[in-house]
């Protein structure tokens, strides 16, 4: 039995040990904010937080998550809008929106670690999350705005 916390709620999992977290979130908990984009940790659409760190939920299996605390986009900001979400809205970032949960979770984790990231730090941190619509310049803009709001 694996015990973990998802968005502040205690959960128990007794299924297949090698099931990636992504499928547990989507198929078992119905938390569909994290997306299946590549299944190989290449695109970042499935990004969630594990103890505050951004991880690719398609590539972390359930057997490694006993005692883990997971936050998904549905739990970000704990009921309020996270500054990154507000900045995203102001910069009109999303186009199709599919990758944006992953982008937002990655950006929120970055700002936990770096107060005022430089362009290079933003590019480095965000490079794992692909946006096929090409919203990148607005993502940079939004992260900078969110960083300033957070201070």
């Amino acid at each position: 039995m694996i015990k973990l916390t998802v968005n502040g709620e205690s959960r128990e999992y007794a299924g297949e040990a090698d099931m990636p977290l992504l499928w547990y979130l989507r198929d078992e908990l119905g938390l569909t904010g994290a997306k299946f984009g590549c299944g190989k940790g290449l695109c970042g659409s499935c990004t969630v937080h594990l103890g505050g760190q951004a991880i690719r939920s398609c590539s972390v299996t359930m057997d490694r998550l006993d005692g883990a605390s997971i936050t998904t986009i549905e739990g970000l900001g704990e009921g309020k809008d996270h500054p990154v979400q507000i900045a995203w809205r102001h910069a009109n970032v999303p186009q199709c929106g599919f990758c944006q949960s992953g982008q937002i979770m990655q950006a929120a984790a970055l700002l936990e670690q770096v107060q005022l990231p430089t362009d290079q730090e933003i590019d480095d941190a965000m490079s794992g999350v692909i946006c096929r619509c090409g919203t990148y310049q607005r993502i940079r803009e939004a992260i900078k705005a969110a960083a300033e709001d957070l201070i």
Partner: protein
Amino acid sequence: MKNIRQMNRRDFLKTGGVFTLGVSLYGCGRKATPLEVKPVPPVPWTADVYVSFDAEGVVHIISHRSEMGQGIRTGLPAVLADEMEADWKQVVVDQATGDAKYGNQNTDGSWSVRGFMQRMREAGATVRLMLEQSAAKQWGVDVSECKAVLHTVVHEPSGQVLAYRDLVAVASELPVPGADQITLKTPDQFRYIGQDLKIVDMHDMTHGTAVYGADIRVPGMKFAVIARPPVVFGRVKSFDGEKALAVPGVLQIIEMPPLEPPAMFKPAGGVAVVAENSWAALKARDLLEITWDNGPNADYDSNAYREALLEQVRQAGESRRNQGDIDTALEEAASTLEAEYYAPHLAHVPMEPPAAVASVTESLCEIWAPSQDPQSLIEMAASITGLKAEQIRVNVTLLGGAFGRKSKGDFVNEAVFLSKQVGAPVMVQWSREDDVRHDYYHSVSAQQLTAGLDSDGKVTAWRHRLAYPTIMSLFDASLKQPQAMELSLGALNMPYDIPNVRLETGEIEARVRIGWLRSVCNIFQSFAINSFTDEIAEARGLDPRENLLDLLGPDRVLDFSAFGYELTEGYPFETGRLRNVIEYASKSAEWGRELPAGHGLGIAAQYSFLSYVAAVVEVAVDDDGSWRVPRIDVAIDCGQFVNPDRVKAQQEGAAIFALSLAREGAITAENGRIQQSNFHDFPVLRISQAPVTRVVLVESKAPPAGVGEPGVPPITPALVNALYAVTGKRFRDLPLGAKLEL
């Protein structure tokens, strides 16, 4: 499903559904009410199929076009809301089901606004007039004294005001005014059209609550993945599913019907695993033991195919456009230049891999799908299920990117087939590997361009030879020539003012499923034409921008209908507008500006989807051949536009899209098998490689034209022209690779 509401609940319009409203009309102490206050019985209102009110006075506007990032769920409803003087804060956008009553729903070809703006305006103006008439009737005044203002009607002489909510019941009983009675707004009266509007899906898209194909959850739903034949038109010879069935959660192994030509949008065949969850299905699929008959494409080799294409363009082909006397002009030219261009197959790779849910019972087939063309799914579902068209219901989710991929309903038809077999709702989920290996690929192409110059350096001859497998082979496998609709995407309508022009096409058989990808044949036709233009500039000793403007010639209207080009009424090809965007883009880019060492600028322009776009790309090349694009300046004249922020966003995105393909986009095949599978070997641009794109949106009084696609075609040629400016080397083979050979 909370953000995907359906039309049927309230479609009181056109189809004559029942409109119910329990609101008392008067009772707020207003004076001079000419009608008795009484409960209003449900009445049918047939004003329009796209708009309805709920009991709170909230306006529900139908988006019958699919949202895939272009912002259409905001754009067209805003047009209707504007004309009906609705308060945008009191508007809810509902997604249409696939239904012919909405008109064409095929969301491709960058024509949603062009095709439906007028229709939406008329719908809005009709509803506005009926609400004004309703108020006039209630006040007992002439309608000319009543004016709709932001979800209310004002009686101007007395200053009385009635909210839309209190006008709906009476309005619904009025005869629908004819087109001759309504008055459209003048542009100075627009409230939303031409203004930046936040997309209606903003909250859901930033909170994980937006619903895409794979986010649908239906009670009792099973999860399926399919092992498809590795070669197109291959089939299952035999299979053993025992190991797969042993995986916990796996329910059934089902053989899919084999794919027979023409491919159309039929399921691709193979063996399906149906399970209680996605993971079980994915894991079990790897354990299937399948022996394939690889079929007629088992020898498809993209290297050999490339040589066959090049051979086609090195000889005379079928003439598709002929002006003047090209042979004599080339013979008599003081000098000639010639170049060959090659571009490979490309995959769409939308961030959301194909996924769809179907629930088939004896009397109903209900589909939930990220489809660009929901109506197209009905016929196929009917043929798979044996149900009648009216028993097929298609719900359209948001599309997590599409770029043409989700016009093709093969993945939906798989879900329909499996749901019928299983007797339960089934989701078919494609993995990224499935998506890359079983796409409808953008066509591979070879082109040869030859120009003749006279002794003054004037270009007297232009010969363009092309060969590529046609999209129409999807529907008729015997077709081997590019079709007029494909050549019309840049080649048939090449605009230069050159006296002798010929376009020739070669023959080649399609060996994979060919599909349309954002901006379609413009991608390679614009690449070759605009690259060759730059080569001509060099031969003439002219600045590339000056050369481009010179070739374009005097401002005039072009007509290529003699060569099979289909004219769009009201949209003449005006070369002055192309010149204009070239001037805007080069001004924005400060063309000729001083650049750091290793940096260069390139320019290109393309008319596509009735819009005019020019781009200046700045490239930076390191000594080791690695390169990046720090900045792009784009100018677009798309005629009248609705939501300028979304028009700009589309150009920013189009630039990234084009750079992705130019950099490392290539689908290759060996023994009929596609060699790429995921983002490691079919890479797309990441943020660290992304430029800043500055967009000049040209104010225009012309009617609305395309926005989603036209930003793509000029980027790649402008890029290779910029690379030439830095390196002195021509890059005529795509993709360029992350590192150039210098």
